[in-house]
């Protein structure tokens, strides 16, 4: 078997809360082969962002391992592009300069910088807004620039934490199509967090459902729908069956959590 692009095994993470330590992640195992699109869903607070931060190298962990191409992750790196849930474009730079900022960090210089930046803004359909500052862009446009920035230095893995969380349904739909196109063209490996089950099923090869308290991978649902996927695929019985299955899995979790809270409260 070929080596997975990203491999997480036996990962645990605890946080101090007051005098006790709470176990947020408990024995996470997840392997993502190259060019696979995996979504992570689960109830709020189950540890999705924490897992993504650890994979990004922005947060350390207690036990277990995170391997990229078989090599342990030691801190953040340009082999993994991150799109954060919050808006992280630098407001003092234009859209193009924001992308150039990343490219410069990656060692590009001169005319290359500008060309590569514009090329990636074109990729997300924003070349006309290259010279606009973030305060002149809508929420969806900002996230598109952030995606362009994360892709510009050609990371092999893209980590996205609810990047479309703040967007309306229509813009969201555009962004999903765009992301699918980019993912196909760049042969990316994607770990994608979302609250939106339909989004997860539509985009992914596999959907990983997390359980809460402690956070574990409860179930991995393979999405056996052919690509390319037109958007009206969401109303086919096949899609709806998968959608229901993932939703039921999450709902089970939230009911269990509610009962646990009741028992405590």
């Amino acid at each position: 078997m070929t080596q997975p692009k990203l491999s997480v095994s036996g990962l645990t993470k605890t946080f101090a809360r007051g005098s006790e330590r709470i176990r947020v992640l408990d024995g996470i195992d997840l392997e993502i082969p190259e060019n696979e699109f995996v979504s992570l869903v689960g109830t709020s607070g189950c540890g999705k962002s924490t897992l993504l931060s650890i994979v990004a190298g922005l947060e350390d962990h207690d036990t277990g391992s995170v391997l990229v191409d078989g090599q342990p992750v030691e801190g953040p790196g340009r082999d993994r592009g991150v799109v954060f849930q919050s808006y992280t474009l630098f407001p003092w730079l234009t859209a193009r300069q924001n992308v150039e900022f990343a490219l410069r960090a990656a060692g590009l210089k001169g005319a290359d910088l500008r060309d590569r930046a514009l090329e990636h803004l074109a990729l997300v359909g924003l070349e006309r807004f290259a010279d606009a500052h973030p305060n002149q862009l809508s929420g969806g446009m900002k996230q598109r620039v952030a995606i362009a920035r994360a892709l510009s230095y050609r990371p092999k893995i893209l980590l996205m934490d609810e990047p479309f969380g703040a967007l309306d349904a229509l813009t969201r739909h555009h962004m999903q199509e765009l992301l699918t196109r980019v993912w196909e063209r760049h042969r990316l490996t994607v770990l994608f967090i979302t609250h939106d089950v339909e989004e997860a099923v539509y985009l992914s090869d596999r959907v990983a459902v997390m359980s809460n308290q402690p956070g574990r991978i409860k179930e991995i649902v393979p999405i056996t729908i052919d690509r390319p996927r037109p958007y009206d695929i969401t109303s086919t019985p096949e899609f709806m069956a998968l959608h229901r299955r993932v939703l039921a899995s999450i709902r089970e979790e939230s009911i269990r959590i509610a009962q646990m809270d009741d028992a405590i409260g």
Partner: protein
Amino acid sequence: MPRRSDARGQGLFRLTARLTPARFVAISCVVFAGLLAVWWGVTASGLVKPLFLPGPDRVFARLADLAASGQLWEDAGVSIYRIMVGFLIATVLAVPIGVLIGCYRAWEAIIEPVVDFVRYMPVVAFVPLTILWAGTGDGQKFLIIWIGTFFQQVLLIMDNVKRVPWDFVNVGRTLELKEREILARIVVPAALPGIWDSLRISLGWAWTWLVLAELVAATSGLGYRIVTAQRFFQTETIIGYILVLGLFGLVTDQAMKAIAKRLFRYAEARR
């Protein structure tokens, strides 16, 4: 529709209502004119004795005399020089220290409690001490301005830096930037509009402390002139100089705001 025009009519005092710059200035000028009229009214009608509050005509006449004789410019020049040097020393020290303790918890632990402690000591109480240390010359004025502004600036700037979103730093990390690069190319630019605002606010305080120092012990400057005027019951001069001080404050504040508007155009929220 009548309802629509009603909403427009009350628009001036509606939340988030817009105002053109011209209208803004017009409203401000009307308020100033109104205050002037009240002042003129209470003095011209004899309601208040001129010894306590002379009329605007007399105050402006005195100011004109002082300007013509060069006295006003000399006094103002001395004070402006003092404020510039004192404020600059405070700022040059406060910015790096504020940034440092805003970024690093360890530095915050070392510096912040001390600064906070000193900040609560009344500046007025330092006046006798500074005279003892530095005499009554310019050095003592610089020192008072420094004590009055530096500690406040450090804390304000620390807050500005702390308000930089964590994820901005994380972006820098994922790009494998070095700590120093993240500091210089992400944290400082992100905090800059806030820092500028903090400096603008602290400049206002600097004026207060300067005049205080000049009132207590000086042989020149606007504050000194106010004390001598008091000795000779020249109320016109006192009030005239207070107005001049107010005017300087207003002008520098508006100037710094205008500069910020140009420098940090990008930071303006969309409205």
